[in-house]
């Protein structure tokens, strides 16, 4: 036996918390047919019956013509779900009951869940659920998302209602073609319903002391940036234990696997695939997933407490120039630490187009790894103040790239008509539900680990084949042959085969750039080892600097630095973007844009720099 239900609620009604707690890890994320709106489905079992849950897209109403509203209306009308669970925020009951007013005309079986009843009570608001249920004709369940007993009540209620469903007995508000009148009549319907069943607190609003500070024009912005940077550090701290265990994998596995396979007379090429490459892929993916875990915990916390809404308020004006909502500020700041963190941080945004646009803009932000290699390379060719100029130049170009990316992609991803975020609510501060945050972060990290392992392995094998040489000498690798073969073309863009190879490996992992330069200029490391052991191998930068400055011109070095910084981020960030957007088409589109951008930039920088140097 199976049952099917749908969750309906406005943004911030706690819908995703309830969805995640009901279904746990048994979730499937896809897209609504033909639309760029995310479709979340999941299942749970209760008393031997399996229930499927559809999380309907969040919107404030159902009368508008946005994709979200059309999908929801059509889905409920189709009757694919036998029961609609309508969620409202009990602490803002009057406003959030608007959704029920919109739902009423669809005349389908429903239950009403008064979520955040704990918050409402702490504000001195009371709701007489029984009286409301009597008026409505459907069950009304006061609900506290942190209380596991309430989930049992909800599951029991769903079980009962599927056997004997109820529909609203109160007449639906009249539909009016005039949008203004339509909403007005619906709010009057809500006011009428709530008139003798609720008691609200003070009519005068007093900002909390924290909010008074957080909403100050300058201080608030400084605090927001500070909090996000702190959040990044915390995410790193969470990641460290997992990463240090992961980092042991290549060392532990290398020798035994090597010995075993060599003993079986396996071809040395395959031996190093299993002894060097795969353990490193495992290590990379573990690092990435544990970072995603950390980021999800801190962002989950910041979102649940209501901090993100304050940050969005502060930066909305600035980011609307890029076609983004204010909420994008957090993933963008996160991007200075790590592009993977930035990409998965876009999860807090409620619209797919906005998320994809934010991810493609986050790619332009140089991550910590880039900031760690650029000064080193620049120092080989330039004085300290010239190096400073290079960094300033990079920062300026970050802004230019962001504007160009927004110009190129925002027309499709964030059409003027759908830009939201200018009108938004600032939910009251909530206590964070740690158990829920950690659980959800774990599921997301596990999910990304499973998916990324495949992608990263595939790309690693490709790079491995290209960089492999029997005797460890770079000159015998396919990449060398390919690099020297197309050198006339790369020279046009300002890069010789050596720097072009480092450019390519930078697309694999930014940390690999120094190792690759070492391999191609010094010839003492195999290219493959340089790439896969980049995180453990140390490079003698002084020696490398001498070799490099003898081999290439400062103009080429400059072109290379810019090209590497603004190329696609590492393969892990790429696969995170793919995972988060569910769109291979868009990930590839944006990646192609960045590759072209890097090459054109390299061309311009090289030819201008050649005039002066």
């Amino acid at each position, binding site marked *: 036996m199976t049952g099917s239900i749908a969750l309906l609620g406005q943004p911030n009604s706690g819908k995703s918390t309830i969805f995640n707690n009901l279904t746990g890890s048994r979730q499937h994320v896809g897209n609504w047919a033909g639309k760029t709106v995310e479709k979340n489905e999941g299942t749970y079992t209760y008393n031997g019956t399996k229930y499927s849950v559809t999380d309907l897209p969040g919107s*404030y109403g159902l*009368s*508008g013509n946005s994709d979200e509203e059309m999908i929801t209306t059509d889905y409920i009308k189709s009757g694919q779900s036998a029961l609609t669970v309508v969620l409202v925020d009990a602490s803002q009951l*009057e406003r959030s009951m608007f959704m029920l007013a919109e739902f009423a005309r669809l005349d389908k079986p429903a239950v009403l869940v008064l979520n955040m009843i704990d918050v409402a009570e702490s504000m001195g608001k009371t709701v007489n659920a029984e009286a409301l249920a009597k008026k409505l004709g459907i069950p009304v369940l006061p609900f506290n998302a942190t209380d596991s007993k309430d989930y049992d009540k909800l599951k029991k209620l769903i079980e009962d209602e599927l056997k004997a469903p109820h529909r609203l007995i109160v007449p639906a508000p009249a539909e009016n073609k005039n949008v203004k009148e339509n909403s007005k009549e619906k709010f009057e319907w809500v006011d009428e319903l709530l008139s003798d069943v609720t008691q609200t607190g003070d009519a005068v609003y007093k900002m909390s002391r924290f909010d008074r500070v957080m909403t100050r*024009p300058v201080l608030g912005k400084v605090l927001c940036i500070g909090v996000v940077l702190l959040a990044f550090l915390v995410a790193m701290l969470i990641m460290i234990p997992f990463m240090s265990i992961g980092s042991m994998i290549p060392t532990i596995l290398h020798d035994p696997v090597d010995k075993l396979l060599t003993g079986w007379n396996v071809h040395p090429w395959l031996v190093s695939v299993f002894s060097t490459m795969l353990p490193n892929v495992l290590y990379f993916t573990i690092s990435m997933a544990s970072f995603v875990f950390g980021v999800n915990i801190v962002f989950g916390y910041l979102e649940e407490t209501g901090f993100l809404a304050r940050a969005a308020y502060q930066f909305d004006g600035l980011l609307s120039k890029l076609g983004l909502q204010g909420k994008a500020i957090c993933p963008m700041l996160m991007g200075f630490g790590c592009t993977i963190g930035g990409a998965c941080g876009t999860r807090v945004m409620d619209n797919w187009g906005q998320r994809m646009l934010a991810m493609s803009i986050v790619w332009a932000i140089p991550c910590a790894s880039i900031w760690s290699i650029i000064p080193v390379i620049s120092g080989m060719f330039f004085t300290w103040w010239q190096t400073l100029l290079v960094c300033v130049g990079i920062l300026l170009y970050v802004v230019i790239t962001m504007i160009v990316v927004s110009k190129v992609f925002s027309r499709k991803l964030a059409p003027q008509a759908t830009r939201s975020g*200018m009108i938004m*609510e600032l939910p009251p501060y909530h206590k964070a539900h740690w158990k829920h945050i950690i659980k959800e972060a774990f599921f997301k990290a596990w999910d990304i680990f499973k998916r990324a392992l495949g992608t990263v392995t595939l790309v690693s094998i490709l790079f491995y084949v290209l960089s492999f040489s029997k005797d460890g000498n770079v000159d015998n690798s396919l990449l060398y042959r390919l690099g020297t073969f197309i050198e006339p073309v790369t020279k046009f863009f300002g890069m010789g085969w050596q720097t072009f190879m480092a450019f390519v490996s930078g697309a694999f992992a930014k940390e690999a750039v120094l190792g690759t330069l070492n391999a191609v200029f010094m010839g003492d490391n195999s290219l493959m080892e340089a790439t896969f052991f980049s995180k453990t191998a140390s490079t003698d930068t002084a020696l490398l600097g001498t070799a490099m400055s003898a081999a290439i011109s400062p103009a080429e070095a400059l072109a290379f630095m810019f090209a590497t910084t603004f190329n696609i981020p590492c393969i892990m960030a790429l696969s995170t973007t793919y995972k988060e957007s569910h769109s291979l088409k868009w990930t590839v589109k944006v990646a192609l844009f960045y590759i072209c951008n890097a090459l054109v930039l390299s061309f311009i920088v090289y030819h201008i720099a050649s005039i002066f140097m």
Partner: protein
Amino acid sequence: MKLIETKSDMRGSITAVNGDDHFMNRITSIGITEGTTFQTVRNDKKMPVLIYLRETLISLNRADAERIEVTSK
């Protein structure tokens, strides 16, 4: 007067909302309908206007606040 001209802590009610259907749909579905009482919480230069209405703290950008007419109580 316009919402954008209100000062912090002023209380009043919405008298008119002007704009196309898309704007109207967004603004009224969040609760800003004619006749609703509200309180301006914060109105700083170059920042969105913060108002309290129907038990909710709402942030509106300045261009939108320009299109809402209010009267003080």
